[in-house]
């Protein structure tokens, strides 16, 4: 198990290889479907003008994402009534839905680590090489265990997106993940996909 601190240096990123188990510590933010579309539309492709608190939120998250980590997660959060937030269940969501946006988000904010499940495609893999960055796979559904590695909820942006879609700023300690896409062009997901396709074709050749 490699211990990795956030923010992550380029040197550390280059040293990480597909298959490495990693234990992450530091501050990261959650972001999934609505957040990625909002980032892309408002600040990267600029197809809509910033509205309401958009600009203030952008300024606040920019330094958190610089050499930082974004986590594809829609948590179950206690303390919604009091603002004394606590993560109750916080496993990863399926990452491939962010494939249209992830590469440009990584480049724009210099995001070094993307945590999720199920892996991502070629566009994200190209960004991992360029930025450089890695895709880190958490165990899907292991929500209670992962919530225990969230030591504190430091704040939340865009709660009006809804609890699962908001950007939660969290401090984690020993958050367990596995590198499944690295900065050297390797993807465990592409390998497993290709190998299983060969078996599928064999099986389909039988009656």
């Amino acid at each position, binding site marked *: 198990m490699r211990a990795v601190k956030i923010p992550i240096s380029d040197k550390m990123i280059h040293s990480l290889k597909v298959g490495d188990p990693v234990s992450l510590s530091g501050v990261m933010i959650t972001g999934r479907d609505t957040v990625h579309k909002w980032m892309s539309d408002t600040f990267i492709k600029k197809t809509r003008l910033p509205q309401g608190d958009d600009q203030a939120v952008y300024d606040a998250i920019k330094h958190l994402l610089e050499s930082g980590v974004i986590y594809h997660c829609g948590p179950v959060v206690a303390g919604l009534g009091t603002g004394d937030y606590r993560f109750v*269940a916080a496993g990863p969501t399926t990452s491939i839905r962010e494939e249209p946006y992830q590469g440009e988000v990584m480049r724009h904010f210099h995001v070094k680590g993307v945590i999720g*499940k199920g892996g991502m495609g070629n566009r994200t893999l190209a960004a991992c090489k360029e930025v450089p960055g890695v895709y880190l*796979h958490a165990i*899907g*559904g292991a929500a209670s265990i992962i919530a*225990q590695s969230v030591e504190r909820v430091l704040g939340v942006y865009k709660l009006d997106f*809804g*609890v699962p879609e908001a950007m939660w700023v969290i401090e984690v300690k020993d958050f367990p993940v596995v590198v499944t896409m690295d900065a050297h062009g390797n993807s*465990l997901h592409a390998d497993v996909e290709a190998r299983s396709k060969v078996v599928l074709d064999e099986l389909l050749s039988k009656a």
Partner: protein
Amino acid sequence: MQDITDLILELVRLVSTDLPSDVESSIRRAVEQEEPGSAARGALETILKNIELSRGNSTPICQDTGTPIFYVHYPEGWSTRRLRQQIEAAVATATQRSYLRPNAVEALSGKNSGNNLGDLHFPTIHFEEVEGDVLTIDLLLKGGGCENVGAQYSLPHTALGAGRDLAGVRRVVLDAVHKAQGQGCAPGFLGVAVGGDRGSSYYASKEVLFQNLEDQNPDPKLAEMEKRLTEESNQLGIGPMGFGGKTTVLGTKITSMHRLPASFFVSVSYMCWAYRRRRMILQGNKVSYR
């Protein structure tokens, strides 16, 4: 009619925080199949620890508490209108208590209702009147990751060489498992429906997920195909989380239904390893959960 809101709330809590024993046993058996020290085995060991932790702390096994799908079988005399109100009240309270994540989102505006109540389809409730005096409520929590990899095929399917027979069913189901890779939180469970129209076929592919894994399919041909599909899915080597490994599918259930002469649908509902389902049985004042 008695108010059973609190009994339903307990059903929701149980389903979200504690897996049924047939499911947990099948995951425990799977761990032994994977190589010691492999990512696949590590994933399954983490999953088992998570199951125990969730049960002990009464916290959701998975943060995606999914679409709550209820099947209510009620004796004559119960009001489905009041049962619906009580189910909705239980769901809203369960959300407040963090047993459920607020998951009901208005389709186009993206507005989250905050309490898991949406329109007539959220939560999903099916009612069926039965003879006798026993009320049963089945609940399945099905998350979005596995729901997104579900698939429906119209046979014949030329590219897959799938004709209108059981051999064709096998081909399209294997294709669905391959396409899903690890996205549906493998190792998963397959609910397969053959026949019906597009709507009833998907409906039946979920209904079959309420069966116990130990139950035997009364049709020997389907029972054999269930076994074969599980084995062949595992040969694909996708493995837990798609990390590569021996365990991709832990069980398959097939049901068939009448269809139109012109249509031959095969629907596959993929259920993640967090196969959260329970039944509440109420007879008089006596309630049990299993």
